[in-house]
């Protein structure tokens, strides 16, 4: 190791320096305990995150992250973040993800560059100091992505579905893109179901049952949703982090909507939009539900075979819940009312 590196590791508190590799000036960030002085840990969707950073502001910000929930999980990962004011993160407008084997790279403009190591369950990132103040970045992007990428290595299956809670029982709403999951989710939330998640639900298992976790990310609604929810006129669509133009609504700001961070899966609805009026419930066999979730999940690398087994076993167990395909050509509020009656009827029947 060079004198320069000795100086760095022995005493210089900064975590970044510039080096020359093959005549390429490189901003270099070393994730060493000596440079990441601020540490905490928190629970996130059934996992525990050991967090360290060189930024006191960022450490303070962790207290504001709504996604943080208590759990008894013993699964954990490390997240190390260096904040650095002078680096640029390119001119891209959308988040960009790539992965090979156990590594995943994420370019997250305007705030940073993050890598994920699935084998060692480590997240390393360089972010702008402004990221500390951007709770939307954490709650809508980095924390959900982290669980989305690492979750299966820690006994948590990220599934593409919404989750709503009624008296401790979860109703999962899945469906193809464009089926109207988010609009139905908002309509159900306005009918007294507590919102756990809109887009991604993280399923873990404790000794007795499956648990559905949400990270309380904003509800994302496409601009044409305004025809169903005139109250959206109070909001302006924005360019979301994946480049789409959409409303991003903090569910806690919507009148009459309550939120929860966990629930226990009891019903599954696979939503299909039809042109014909009416709302029909068609029982769905477990293997159909299983196939749907397996096929709508990101393929996992063979370097983490246990992750694939974990996810499959959670999906298998989940698919044993009562499930229906809902074919609806109705207004989302009418569909929500029908589902609500259906679910409440089932609950009464159970009592």
């Amino acid at each position, binding site marked *: 190791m060079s004198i320069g590196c000795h100086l760095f590791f022995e005493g210089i508190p900064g975590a970044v*320096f*510039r080096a020359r590799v093959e005549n390429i000036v490189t901003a270099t960030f*070393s994730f060493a305990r000596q440079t990441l002085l601020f540490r905490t840990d928190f629970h996130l969707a059934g996992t525990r995150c050991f967090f360290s950073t060189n930024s006191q502001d960022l450490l303070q910000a962790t207290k504001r992250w709504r996604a943080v929930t208590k759990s008894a999980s013993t699964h954990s990962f490390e997240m190390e973040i260096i904040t650095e004011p002078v680096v640029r993160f*390119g001119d891209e407008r959308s988040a960009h993800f790539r992965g090979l*084997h156990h590594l995943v*790279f994420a*370019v997250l403009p305007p705030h940073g560059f993050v890598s994920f190591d699935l084998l060692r369950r480590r997240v390393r990132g360089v972010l702008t100091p402004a990221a500390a103040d951007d709770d939307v970045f954490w709650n809508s992007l980095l924390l959900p992505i982290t669980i989305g990428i690492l979750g299966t290595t820690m006994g948590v299956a990220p599934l593409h579905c919404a989750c709503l809670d009624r008296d401790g029982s979860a109703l999962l709403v899945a469906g193809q893109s464009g089926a109207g999951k988010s609009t139905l989710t908002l309509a159900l939330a306005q009918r007294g179901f507590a919102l756990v998640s809109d887009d991604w639900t993280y399923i873990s298992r404790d000794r007795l049952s499956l648990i559905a976790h949400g990270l309380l990310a904003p509800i994302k609604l496409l601009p044409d949703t305004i025809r169903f929810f005139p109250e959206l006129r109070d909001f302006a669509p924005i360019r979301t982090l994946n480049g789409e133009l959409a409303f991003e609504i903090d569910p806690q700001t919507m009148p009459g909507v309550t939120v929860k961070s966990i629930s226990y899966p009891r019903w599954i609805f696979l939503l299909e939009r039809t042109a014909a009026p009416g709302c029909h419930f068609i*029982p769905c066999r477990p293997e*159909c539900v299983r196939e749907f979730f397996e096929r709508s999940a990101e393929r996992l690398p063979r370097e983490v075979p246990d992750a694939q087994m974990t996810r499959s076993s959670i999906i298998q167990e989940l698919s044993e819940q009562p499930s229906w395909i809902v074919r609806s050509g109705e207004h989302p509020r009418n569909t929500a009312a029908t589902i609500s009656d259906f679910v409440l009827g089932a609950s009464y029947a159970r009592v």
Partner: protein
Amino acid sequence: MRESDGPNHVDPLDLLRRFVPTPLKAAYRIGAIRVVVETNDFSLLPELPLDVTVNGPHQQTLQWKLIRDKDSQGRLEEPMLLTSGGLAVVGMGTGCLFGLDQERQELLGFIGAAIDARTYHEFLVPFFCRMTNEGVYGDPHSYLSEESTGASDA
């Protein structure tokens, strides 16, 4: 009520492009190191001496898996090198992203569609070679060391 034959669905997702086939394979020699390159693009096969020897039991071998990412149009940005233990990850905007795992002896990366052959062969391949050398023989941080321009605080 009749049971459904099943919901509509799409094929399993590969949003991260993990499963892009890499049918092209060649072995090279960088000093004493045998480097096996797997890629999906002829133009990413490096202009290095081919290794024609039989892989001996004590030979150091490192795998490069390089994907030409046709969906990434980004140009190269100033490199950011994140080092931690035996893992080094480099981001150059969306034009080039790669990681070297010293323990697993593999270099895994994506080269964007906008990166031309000259940039690749004159700029990126030497970078990969240097990291490969240090990844096999050296301290994970040492590819920085000899040419370090000095430390500066964040």
